[in-house]
């Protein structure tokens, strides 16, 4: 009765092999590495970059352990920290010829030291949380009310233009909070305004109230449109943050949305909070200026003469110089949106810009006077300008909807739109949570967490082996398998391990032993009641199962509640806690039974079981050792 069919052993074996494989990378530790990623949205890291990296290393006479290419970066693994610094310098020189304008981020990083065949199986070590590796964590709250006010402001401007175009006379348009108020004299104009709004401003809902002899029309943003505005604001802020963080040269920044209006930024390894904050809070500006088309300017572009008075020379992204006038036509404040798309007629890739009312008016005038000339859109960051694009004006453009097209691939259109939008934050942000963990503290925390788990585990195993003899040994093995599977699952999920997570691991083991104690006690009890050895094992496992299941479910309920409502450290705790309960059901019941079956199952005439003392009240004072 105590035998497993082959397939059950097969399941155990498969689980053990998979568990071991995925746990393994955690033991190799981390090797120093240098990571090369693009600092600009327009430059992709690809096989070509990898070739350049390998080439640069060969020239510098450094032999790396491995050069790997993943989705967004090239990683070079080296033997020690000395080589790491050498590689960093060599790559810095080779990839960024102009130190003032780095094209690639070359950052020091740590890579899993596991061999290639493990990486090929996608087996990677657990990702260590900030409290274990040191770094900075920010939680930023996006001011959504400001984003909506900004949107209302631009809609108010658009409405003013639209009413003028339709010759609807009004007594003034103003923004009150997130509502647009229009004063109107009589019912026909109210109707006309309503028509304009219904026609052109589908995002607005209108309410009209009489005010004295006049009417006040209040237009508010529809809830679904407001939600769209908020989503876009959040996305845009995240993109902007991403671009800025790239500059910090952080190897693996985490930028995540949390809830509806929050962004979490984690910068592992960064210690300089002040600089990180300065960069996160900086605003980039976008400027639109005219290109100087004179002969001197042309000469200056190719480097054959001085830059004419009243102009400046900037580089385009492809490295070509453009001489533009110093006079600014309008700034990024007047640009409300930039989206990639296609030209309606030619189906070419294009970027669609939306300007606010003021921008549209200026744009109309400028384009009327400058047909055939070039206009440059410049992005200034850190006081340094770059030409994003410099298209030729084909005709007068009114209405504030501008399309830039021609000689662009869809990827380029995407990148240009991104750069144009990334110029500014869609809404102001405020840091509402921040913590810095020093690198020494991180290392201390790892060793503390590790020691807690290790000593607790050792103590439990020792006790179980002494108290329950062979069954205790099996229980200890089952507990080890539980730990193995828990680490394997966490590694597979690439969950972030934090100190509370390690505490949860310890606690999970401490609680998992409960199942084995239940089983062992039950087996003893059956033996005490006079059951035969085989029957006692069988009944012990079968009867204990109900109880184990019930008790694990109640613990799981608590774990799930923590997962649902917890945040930050509590979540890390809850994830490990829940997974630990699930793996313990497998290891404590299924696996340990397998061991027992393997050991005792075939012995038909089994007389005794090694489960420690089975004390019987009947044999008063006499200790029967069941062995």
């Amino acid at each position, binding site marked *: 009765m105590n035998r497993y069919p082959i397939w059950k052993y097969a399941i155990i074996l498969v689980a053990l092999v998979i568990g071991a494989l995925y746990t393994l990378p955690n033991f190799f530790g981390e090797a120093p590495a240098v990571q090369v990623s693009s600092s600009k949205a327009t430059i992709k890291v690809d096989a070509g970059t990898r070739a350049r990296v390998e080439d640069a290393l060969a020239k510098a006479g450094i032999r790396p352990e491995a050069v790997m290419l993943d989705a967004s970066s090239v990683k070079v693994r080296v033997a020690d920290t000395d080589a790491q610094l050498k590689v960093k310098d060599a790559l810095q020189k080779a990839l960024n010829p102009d130190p003032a304008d780095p094209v690639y981020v070359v950052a020091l990083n740590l890579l899993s030291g596991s061999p290639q065949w493990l990486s090929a199986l996608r087996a990677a070590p657990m990702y260590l949380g900030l409290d274990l590796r040191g770094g900075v964590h920010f939680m930023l709250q996006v001011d959504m009310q400001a984003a909506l006010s900004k949107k209302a402001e631009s809609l108010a401007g658009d409405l003013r233009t639209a009413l003028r175009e339709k010759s609807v006379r009004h007594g003034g348009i103003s923004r009150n909070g997130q509502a647009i108020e229009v004063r109107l004299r009589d019912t026909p104009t109210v109707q006309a305004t309503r028509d304009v709004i219904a026609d052109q401003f589908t995002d607005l809902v209108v309410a009209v109230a009489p005010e004295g002899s006049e009417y006040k029309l209040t237009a508010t943003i529809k809830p679904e449109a407001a939600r769209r505005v908020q989503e876009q604001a959040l996305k845009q802020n995240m993109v902007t943050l991403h671009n800025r963080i790239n500059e910090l040269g952080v190897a693996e920044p985490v930028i995540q949305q949390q809830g509806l209006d929050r962004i979490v930024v984690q910068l592992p390894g960064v210690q300089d909070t002040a600089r990180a904050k300065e960069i996160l809070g900086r605003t980039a500006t976008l400027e639109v200026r005219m290109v100087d088309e004179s002969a001197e300017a042309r000469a200056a572009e190719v480097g054959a003469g001085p830059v004419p008075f009243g102009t400046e020379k900037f580089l385009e992204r492809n490295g070509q110089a453009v001489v533009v006038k110093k006079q600014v036509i309008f700034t990024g404040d007047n640009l409300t949106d930039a989206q990639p798309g296609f030209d309606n007629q030619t189906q070419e890739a294009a970027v669609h810009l939306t300007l606010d009312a003021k921008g549209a008016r200026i744009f109309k005038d400028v384009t009327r006077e400058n047909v055939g000339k070039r206009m440059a859109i410049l992005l200034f960051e850190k006081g340094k300008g770059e030409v994003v694009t410099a298209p030729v004006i084909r005709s007068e453009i009114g209405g504030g909807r501008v399309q830039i097209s021609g000689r662009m691939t869809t990827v380029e259109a995407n990148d240009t739109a991104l750069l144009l939008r990334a110029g500014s934050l869609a809404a102001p942000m405020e840091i509402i949570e921040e913590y810095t963990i020093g690198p020494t503290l991180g290392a201390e925390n790892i060793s503390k967490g590790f020691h807690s788990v290790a000593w*607790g585990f050792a103590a439990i195993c020792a006790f179980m082996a002494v108290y329950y003899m062979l069954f205790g040994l099996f229980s200890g093995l089952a507990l080890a398998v539980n730990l193995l599977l828990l680490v394997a699952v966490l590694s597979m999920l690439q969950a972030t391990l934090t100190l509370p997570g390690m505490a949860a691991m*310890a606690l999970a083991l401490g609680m998992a032993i409960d199942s084995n104690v239940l089983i062992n006690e039950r087996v003893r009890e059956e033996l005490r009641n006079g059951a035969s050895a085989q029957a006692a094992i069988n009944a012990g496992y079968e009867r204990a199962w109900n109880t184990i299941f019930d008790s694990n479910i109640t613990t799981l309920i608590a774990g799930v509640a923590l997962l649902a409502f917890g945040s930050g450290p509590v979540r890390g705790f809850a994830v490990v806690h829940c997974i630990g309960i699930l793996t313990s059901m497998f290891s404590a019941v299924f696996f340990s039974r397998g061991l027992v079956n393997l050991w005792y199952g075939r012995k038909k005439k089994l007389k005794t079981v090694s489960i420690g003392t089975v004390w019987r009240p009947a044999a008063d004072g006499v200790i029967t050792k069941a062995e």
Partner: protein
Amino acid sequence: MEFFRIRRDIPFMENALIFNVISFLTFAAAVFFLITRGLHLSVEFTGGTVMEVSYSQPADVEKVRRTVAGLGFADVQVQNFGTSRDVLIRLPAQKGVSSAQQSERVIRELCTSEGGDYKTDPQQDGRVSCKTSAGAEPLVLKRTEFVGPQVGEELATDGLKALAMVVFGIVVYLAFRFEWKFAVAAIIANLHDVVIILGFFAFFQWEFSLAVLAAVLAVLGYSVNESVVIFDRIRENFRRYRKLTTIQIIDNAITSTISRTIITHGCTQMMVLSMLLFGGPTLHHFALALTIGILFGIYSSVFVAAAIAMWLGIKREDLVKSSTRREGDPNDPNAGATV
């Protein structure tokens, strides 16, 4: 080895009243301390800034306090953290001041007071450190933590929501698996544990952080286990021993599971003890909450949960409704024991 050589069932239920009075008194004391002293909530809940600074020499807490207070911060708390060289500084949340600047100012001032200069070290990949002219490093900023007041409020409500969900989930599950009387008894017994843990934290003014909250909820789920194990046995006994009274059945159930209860909790406690010893100050209160939770978990499931179930009047018919009629021989000790 066998620790528990119990010859006959221990009459737990005879003394139920005494235990219930003890429970009630501890509970009342816990509530009293919670109300009069309140919980010493961590910065995660209250909002504010915490800085952990490690000195190379044993730190002069008084001097640190003076230096920080000299910057014009009110209600500054400075205390040793773990060792005499580590200092924990807490600054309450201030309106209008971005707390990020707070920690920056404090560390700069502390550094200057030790005769050092706080600046970025270009040789260490931009790491900021405090160095004296002699090149020594008198203090290191180990961590800072700033939490805005709005986050704290949310955490508190989320914590209460989580607690409510755990209680609700467990009651529903137990009511479904056993019977409502058991569910009520188990949850009262274990909530009583939770209140007592909180009472300890209030009495000793230990810091109540998010990790402690997690520990409290985990222990709630865990010690419900205890009650479940005993209830399971009560149910089994009802099926097995027809002639015993409810009180005898409960006594037998507790007696036959007590060895398991104590061994399991002993093992869990070994793990928690290991955390208490090796986990350092960060895990200290977490482990402390677990310890209290585990000890009172044993007590409450043995002496409180079963007693409440008894007062609520559990009967054989509550648990073995349909199966009683089906079984044949009433003298068979294994009748009704389903596998």
